[in-house]
């Protein structure tokens, strides 16, 4: 077997556009003062971590061929729950995080049930769940709409774990979990089945893959990751409120953008958790690059639209020549060569 050679061409760039995006953003950072300081990197990656969890969840579901719109609200609810349990019931942090994550698992199960058993389109089902979760959120913390001001564990998550490396513990945990999920998606049967169910449901079904079960696993994985991330984010920022993370752009929107930039197929079956993560890191730095929210929104939106257009047009072109017969195609090439 000959080794695969890496050719730098259009499709290579397109497949790795997340890395390209990150490189460009980091390169642009050189021209900014105080951009590559330890403090800046620490806070940028830390503050950008929440959407990384959301992007993780969104990508998993999109690979399975579904959309999970609840990611943002699961994480917010988890943060409220986590801080609430600590401050109201006085439970230790670990227990709080665990309970919050269990809540995520529950939401994932409900989503999976709605999609696989009641056969509601995932976009609509999770949309409905969004309303429910928002309602629950307000019920849990009706007055102040925020819980916390508790900075006891905040220091631990904020501080750098390894001296000299300018990353907060929170960001490192995020990265670790994403790597674990990536390994799960790449190297376990369930993970591969998620790809298969998204790529071709019929093939998976014919091969005896329990597609309903696999889809539910995808939803549970997505929701529990988001819940864990949300809980940690609550502790990290020391406070949780109902509009957590909604500074400027809805986190869900960023998660979607990063998933698309990361090259995950809208139709499912193709994509990488890692690519989404890379493009989210890029988005985090991008947001530090542009101080104004307006510019952040515009730049992110332009990149998203460019990616969607690129893929749509590629699809459109492909559909024009679908079904050509090889014999006739050879003949065509011959005739063109003559003329």
């Amino acid at each position, binding site marked *: 077997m000959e080794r695969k050679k890496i050719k730098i061409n259009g499709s290579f760039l397109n497949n790795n556009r997340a890395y390209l995006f990150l490189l460009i953003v980091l390169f642009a950072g050189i021209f900014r003062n105080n951009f590559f300081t330890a403090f800046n990197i620490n806070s940028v990656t830390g503050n950008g971590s929440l959407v990384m969890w959301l992007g993780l969840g969104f990508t998993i579901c999109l690979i399975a061929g579904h959309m999970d719109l609840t990611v943002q609200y699961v994480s917010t609810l988890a943060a409220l729950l986590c801080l609430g349990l600590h401050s109201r019931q006085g439970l230790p942090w670990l227990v709080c995080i665990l309970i919050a994550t269990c809540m995520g698992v529950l939401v994932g199960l409900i989503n999976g049930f709605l999609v696989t058993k009641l056969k509601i389109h995932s976009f609509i089902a999770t949309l409905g769940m969004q309303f429910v979760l928002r309602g629950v959120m307000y019920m849990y913390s009706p007055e102040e709409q925020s819980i916390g001001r508790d900075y006891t564990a905040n220091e631990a998550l904020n501080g750098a774990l390894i001296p000299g490396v300018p990353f907060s513990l929170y960001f490192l945990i995020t990265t670790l979990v994403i790597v674990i999920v990536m390994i799960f998606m790449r190297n376990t*049967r369930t993970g*591969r089945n998620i790809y298969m169910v998204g790529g*071709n449901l*019929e*093939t998976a079904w014919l091969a005896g893959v329990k597609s309903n079960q696999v889809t539910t696993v995808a939803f549970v994985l997505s929701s529990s990751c988001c819940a864990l991330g949300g809980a940690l984010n609550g502790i990290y920022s020391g406070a949780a409120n109902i509009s957590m993370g909604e500074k400027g752009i809805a986190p869900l929107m960023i998660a979607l953008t990063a998933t698309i930039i990361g090259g995950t197929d809208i139709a499912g079956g193709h994509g990488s958790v890692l690519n989404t993560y890379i493009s989210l890191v890029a988005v985090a730095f991008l947001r530090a690059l542009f101080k104004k929210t307006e510019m952040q929104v515009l730049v992110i939106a332009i990149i998203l639209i460019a990616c969607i257009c690129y893929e749509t047009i590629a699809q459109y072109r492909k559909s024009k020549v679908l079904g050509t017969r090889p*014999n*006739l195609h050879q003949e065509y090439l011959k*005739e063109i060569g003559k003329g």
Partner: protein
Amino acid sequence: MSQEPKGTGEVLALEMRGVSKRFPGTLAVDRVDFRVKKGEVHALMGENGAGKSTLMKVLAGLFNDYTGEIFIEGEKKKLHTPIMAKEAGIGMVYQELSLARRISIYENLLVGRLPKKNALFIDKKAAIARARECLERVGLGNLDPTINIADISQCDAQLVEIAKVLDAQPRILVMDEPTSSLSREEVQRMFDIIRKLKEEGLAIIYISHHMSEIFEIADRVTVMRDGRKVGECDVSEINTEQLVEQMVGEPVKSFYAESGSKISDEVVLKVEDFTRWGFFHHVDFELHKGEILAISGLAGAGRTEIARALIGVDAYDKGRVYLHGKEVKFKNFGEAIKAGVGYLTEDRKVVGLALTQSVADNVMSCVIDKYSKGILYSNGWNNDLVDEKINEMSVYPADRNRRVNSFSGGNQQKVLMAKWLAADVDVLILDEPTRGVDVNAKQIIHNVVKKYVEQGNAVILISSDLPEVVGLCDRAVILREGHIIGEIPKEGITENSLLIAANGKGEYVTCQNK
């Protein structure tokens, strides 16, 4: 684990005894006995609707209500689900690829049973090695199993599909038109693989419309007609003409009344050098007023593609189309209908009818613009027209407000036909106008078509139902692999001549393409 090929032939790989399968209204397979020996390629032949794909679906376990007995290697088996069929040792290679395009080859091959390294992880190396073994078996040893299906050729994908089926260690391999999308060189590659598998002792059931392939690859052939088995013999004992005769049977005469249409010399539609690269090349034909012209050929020869390009749904690259002597180029189907060209699609469920809407909605669907007043339109204005057309087609029940999906298949097809009568076009292209309908509806549709051309219109018929072509058509042009290779006049049209010409042989083939 591999089966020892006994080679003595005493135990049959597959024996089906008296297998029947009834669909509402028809007996699709009627007490068929079917035997396949080990290590032979057994061709299953028959015209469209002869019941061969239904028989194979029974074998694949897609029906749980067939009757009769099935023995596999002498053991009696029940095949009620696809899983049961798989466990019994039957491998089906479907015409449509069932592979996930953006997922690697080895995962597609081993979906659902990727080898595990330990309790948690899959063993990627073992999986790739195993995939390579599978690929080697179908002659793809030098294909990298880690690349995506989307990045390999159609032929390779087809072979991967076979490799996937083979990995389940089947004893009987069913191939339904495996060469339909392959080039000639690729077909040869496919045949080499089939020969190799044969030597390994696999029983292979091979379905194809291409007779040359049957003579090249098959050892034995079973012919089916109208749901029954009509013959079985060694391929060496038979030639094309005899095989065609068996498939076609006694010519059915009485059913088709002599057509009284007078064909005038006036050319309604003329097509010159009509080309869509990769689909059909340099097609020329003329259609006269009052004529029914058949575009005849095997499925996949490009018949439907010509029709689609003609009506402006697909763009064509080269050539001219003259309608009533004037050159036309339709940008979309709407323009074609306005100019008087209609097209009855082959698949009524997906592209023909809006199934959840009423008969009136469907019948009027292509003349909305014609009957609208300014921007205003109401179905209610045209109730008389709709009633007239559905009575003409004797749609039962004749209720214009009934939803189309509550009608039987035959009546749905009549509604589809009524839609094109209402469109009042003078050139109508009929693509499989009677597929899957009962005899009664078929007759009604045929009569209507005849009456329609007697009124001075013209029809192009695309049909795999040979008796229909014989009974209706005044002339047939033969299409093979995207080229017109000949023409059969009215006197010469028989089922035999059509089938032989479609395979590129016989007296009517005038310009054999390379």
